[in-house]
């Protein structure tokens, strides 16, 4: 049973691409056959974060337009043999692909891969519509900021209207010191507003920046963010994983556990 997962947020710059790269790589680490698709046509960067930019010959638009076969466009990851990337085109725009074409493409990939991860562009226009057209479930990425949450809320509404009801939330770049001081929304605050299930919170971690620049997803390594992403991957697979103690004090974490029924 393969699953098509769209990673989306509405707002730009909250970490969709980083999340796609890490979740995809994490699934591959756990021996799943994974393909990552960059649907951000015209502004591709999943290939950069994955460190595969130099291998691009064909892209998503070439496949859709029939300029090449799917196999030719898929780039095999440098670390995992069961991880592939379908990069987007740099010289075209969103209108080069239609939702129907995207659905056909994901259906084709379903036959061979366990997980198809779609990195969605920011916004709610054509690129978003393309990305969600073939998806079974969605990972919503948000940061604990009002503007990102507003957009996430809008996106959840649009997903539900398009028949995608399996929606999980990733709260990215949370800073417990700010939360403790009351200067940042807590996980609970965000969940309360958005009313969807939380699948993981990723702390603000400088290692993310370093890893992105090096083109090496940090999922699974010893950093806080690496651990958080690995937990998300396990939860995507359906495992029950206790939440990381992002807060060395008490309060938020025990409340969260209680909320998730794990305590």
């Amino acid at each position, binding site marked *: 049973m393969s699953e098509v997962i769209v990673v989306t947020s509405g707002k730009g710059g909250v970490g969709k691409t980083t999340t796609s790269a890490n979740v995809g790589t994490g699934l591959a680490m756990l021996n799943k056959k994974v393909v990552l698709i960059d649907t951000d046509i015209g502004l591709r960067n999943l290939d950069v974060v994955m460190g595969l930019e130099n291998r691009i010959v064909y892209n998503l638009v070439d496949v859709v337009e029939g300029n090449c076969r799917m196999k030719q466009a898929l780039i095999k990851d440098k670390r995992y043999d069961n991880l592939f990337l379908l990069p987007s085109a740099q010289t075209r725009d969103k209108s080069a692909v239609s939702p129907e074409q995207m659905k056909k493409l994901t259906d084709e990939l379903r036959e061979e891969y366990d997980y198809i991860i779609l990195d969605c562009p920011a916004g709610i226009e054509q690129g978003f519509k393309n990305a969600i057209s073939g998806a079974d479930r969605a990972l919503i990425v948000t940061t604990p900021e009002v503007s990102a949450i*507003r957009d996430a*809320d*809008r996106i*959840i*509404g*649009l997903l*539900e*209207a398009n028949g995608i009801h399996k929606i999980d939330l990733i709260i990215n770049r949370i800073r417990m010191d700010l939360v403790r001081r009351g200067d940042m929304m807590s996980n609970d605050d965000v969940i309360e*507003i*958005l*009313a969807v299930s939380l699948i993981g919170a990723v702390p603000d971690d400088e290692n993310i920046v370093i890893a992105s620049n090096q083109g090496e997803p940090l999922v699974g390594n010893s950093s806080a963010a690496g651990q958080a992403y690995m937990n998300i991957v396990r939860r995507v697979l359906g495992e029950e994983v206790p939440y990381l103690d992002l807060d060395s004090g008490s309060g938020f974490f025990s409340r969260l556990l209680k909320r998730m029924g794990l305590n």
Partner: protein
Amino acid sequence: MKQSVMIKGNTYGITVVLDPELPFSQLKEEVAAKFQESSGFFKNARMALAFEGKELDSAEQMEMVSAITANSSIQVLCVVDSDKEKEEIFRSKAEMVQSAEYNPGLFYKGTLRGGQVVESENNIVILGDVNPGGKVIAKGSIIVLGALKGNAYAGISGNEKAFVAALDMAAMQIRIGDTIARCEDGREGNEDPVPKIAFVENGNIYVETICKEVLNDINFA
């Protein structure tokens, strides 16, 4: 002296009370005379007509009506039957039709998110939150069993007696009828939300904590 014909009026029409003792032909003459007398008073009023006191068949009713219109400039819109049995049948049929069409409003379950709109010709109950950017539009009243953080427009056809109630009232904008209120600038949700109700009084929207006194004072259509 006992009157053989009497005219009673109300806002929508007149009732002609006939003396049951007298024969029809005589009554007709009396009615004609009576309306001629008072034609200056009625002028060319348009009204419904009813007969009381004596049972008239359809032909007699027609004669009576033509006697009235000939002797005055009244326009008779219709003749209302005073037959109790018929009235009962009409009433039950009319109520049956009305109850089938009777629709007190709409329930919406779930979170109403930014960009989403729920509309109804009647009242709306939201079982969930209305997030910022969400809109609830009703001709009647709105009740949110959750947090109202978006916009609520009640009584949009101009009904100032409509109200908006929410368990957590943090609306961006509330409109009731033609009156608009917006939230204070820089206000961020409620720390300890209490159920509140918004209503119009003297052209202003008031938002009050729901308690017995407030509910007693509210009169809604």
